[in-house]
């Protein structure tokens, strides 16, 4: 594997070609916050917490470090005014949906205890829609028993119809979900033997 020289937060490091900025930073001991990332899964680029500022050819750009491949001579800054601004707002947005989960720690790091946004009513277990359970089931277990339903502000996680057949009850998705949503859904499946599409209640505007 070819090695490339990149600069992250002023530190020049050697990164393997084909790896992401996030992976290279981690190798150099620089931690970038993530929510939807898991080394066992394909990069997804949905939570946007891992956004960093890159500079090449004297042009600056904000990118999701989990998806952005390292390039020769790339300059990366993981903490800038804009990056902080993004993470703060994202943490507040998630706090308005879900009071528990990995984002709470990120919020604390930025000194946020309470969101300025109105709370989104969600009677069931909170979910940040990071999609780890969906992707874990599809990519690692090859079962596709968990899916997204709906789009936009109506997006939610559900077990696919007949999931009791496809789901091998490995419960490995329990470990990837830090909000407890998936446990809730699976419990529901076990209660109802004939499973219709079990989506969580729609969130209200």
């Amino acid at each position, binding site marked *: 594997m070819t090695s490339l020289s990149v600069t992250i937060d002023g530190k020049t490091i050697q990164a393997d070609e084909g790896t992401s900025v996030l992976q290279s930073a981690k190798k150099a001991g620089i931690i970038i916050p993530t*929510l939807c990332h898991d080394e066992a899964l394909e990069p997804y680029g949905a939570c*946007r917490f891992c956004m960093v500022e890159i500079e090449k050819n004297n042009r600056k750009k904000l*990118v999701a470090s989990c*998806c952005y491949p390292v390039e020769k001579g790339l300059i990366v800054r993981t903490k800038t005014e*804009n990056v902080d601004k993004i993470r703060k707002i994202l943490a507040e*947005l*998630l706090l308005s949906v879900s009071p528990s989960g990995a984002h709470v720690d990120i919020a604390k790091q930025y000194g946020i205890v309470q969101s*300025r946004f109105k709370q989104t009513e969600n009677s069931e277990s909170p979910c940040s829609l990071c999609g780890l359970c969906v992707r874990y089931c599809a990519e690692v277990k090859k079962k596709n028993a968990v899916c997204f339903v*709906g*789009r936009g502000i109506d997006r939610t996680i559900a077990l696919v119809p007949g999931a009791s057949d496809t789901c091998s009850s490995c419960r490995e998705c329990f470990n990837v979900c830090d909000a407890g949503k998936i446990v809730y859904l699976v419990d529901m499946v076990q209660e109802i033997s004939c499973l219709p599409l079990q989506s969580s209640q729609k969130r209200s505007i």
Partner: protein
Amino acid sequence: MEKFSSVEDLENHHQNLLSRRDSKKLSIAICSGTGCHAYASEKVVGAFEEQLQKHNLTVSVDIKRTGCHGFCEKGPIVVIYPHEFCYCKVTPQDVSEIVTQTIQQGKPVERLLYTDQKTGKKITLETEIPFYKNQTRLIFGNNRKIDPKSIDDYIALGGYAGLAKALSKMTPQQVLDEVKKANLRGRGGGGFPAGKKWETTKNAAEEPKYVIVNCDEGDPGAYMDRSLMEGNPHSVLEGLLIGAYAIGAHEGYVYVRQEYPLAVENTEHAIRQAEEHGLLGKNILGSGFDFNIKVHRGAGAFVSGESSALMSAIEGRVGEPRPKYIHTAVSGLWNKPTCLNNVETWANVPFIINNSAQWFASMGTPNSTGTKIFSLVGNVNNTGLVEVPMGITLREIIYTIGGGIPKGKRLKAVQTGGPSGGCIPEKYLDLTIDFDELYNVGSMMGSGGMIVMDEDTCMVDIARYFVNFLAQESCGKCLPCREGLRQMLRILNDITSGTALEEDMELLEELSEVVQMSALCALGQSAPNPILSTLKYFRDEYEAHLRGECPAKVCKALTQYEIDPAKCKGCGLCTKNCSVEAIEGKNKSVHRIKNDMCIKCGNCLDSCKFNAVVKTTGKQKEFLKKQITVGTR
């Protein structure tokens, strides 16, 4: 059915068609685009068929169902050739008069002609109508001369000559160079140079390569791609074929939204015809070049117009965008190099190849060459599709072609670029329209939507409308777009209902900025544009809403109806028209509207003959204040 095995075959067929076609023969062109179709143009066609039969004219007169002419405001449109008499709003009842007067005697039917709004005079010829006269109808002009179901109609007008030229006289590199030299920019939104995109796909290492037509047009009020795909599908296919030849692709897709049934039907029909004529398939026109096209029907998601989402959908997965740090031109459909362009972009290609890049670049501005089709809608007299050279001013489009604002009202703003575009205020009426100028004032070209708004429009309400649309149409994959739009919509709902506070405005601005910086795809990144552009030019309206006033008197929560005691005659007409019995008053004495019961439908104002009913705003403040303290937050 003739199958062309060489360029000569096609040219011979072209000449044959021309020699068989008599340009002096009477022909009735009836617009059968979606707009006119909705106005029952099919019944007009039926009436013409019946009348021609009755007068034994079926042999000497042709009837043609054409694609959209663009002047949708006046549909159904009927044009009689060779006279070029243009009739507006034709009903089946008008047909017998047209046949006896125009077809039999060659005289125009005065009452069906277009009336000039300024002079009040009737205009006989189609080309003299200001709406058409001031356009440059390069791409769209053939729509009115073609039956979209007839490949011969297209060939008779020189169709597929560009393909023949490319295949027989040019190398793929020469075709690419020509398109690059023409500086054709993508008509779908971003305005990315098409030639550069083609080149990236052409030079990408992987095989096979794909080309795609993006006909997933979904902006509210925009329908130019639809009308082109419905009215002249062969022009798009020809452009795609030429592009595929230049790029080295042998497989192409037309992604059409399922909600465009006529576009789906006509595209599929055109592909079948092209296959039968040897213009698609193996060894096209004896050149050795193979190419096939498949139609993919979209399942109704706005976001699928985004290139990576569209490719996901063709692959059979949910149409959700993915990060494009490696461009789709290099790794797109099934991770293979894929060149995707919008309908209008492809339709430009045959013109460039036929007439040269230099000729093409002579139209428009140096950085935005050629023409652009806009869908001109909203508060404008001549609603319809207009094609103009880039660099024309907004004023020319709205006033010269569009005929100005109805009822003598004042223009307030123009919204361009679809939901993620921006609102341009009246002071920029003389702005020249091209990709860069629109971007500089905080809007964008987008695919060419142009919504004209008059003084009665509330700009906060407009922002709320577009944000609501985007909140429904976001795929929901990335956090800033999904939750950001939810919160933006909430705050806008609060502002329009008078329950927002000043800090909400600050939060809205901060959030908009973050969503713009951090969203995954172009939908999310541009989603705050309706807010940011209205804040930029109409901040005073936002501030008024915070004070409990809606200056345009649109937001229901901030307006009320009142009766002016000096003008009310006590006739009782408003009481009769009130559906909720919210008006009280004895006969011949001053009436009063009970605000707690009023649903603000406006029936009283419309029905009052003495202008005694007035709409007011700003008086709800105390009431709203009470609501806030009671605990909505």
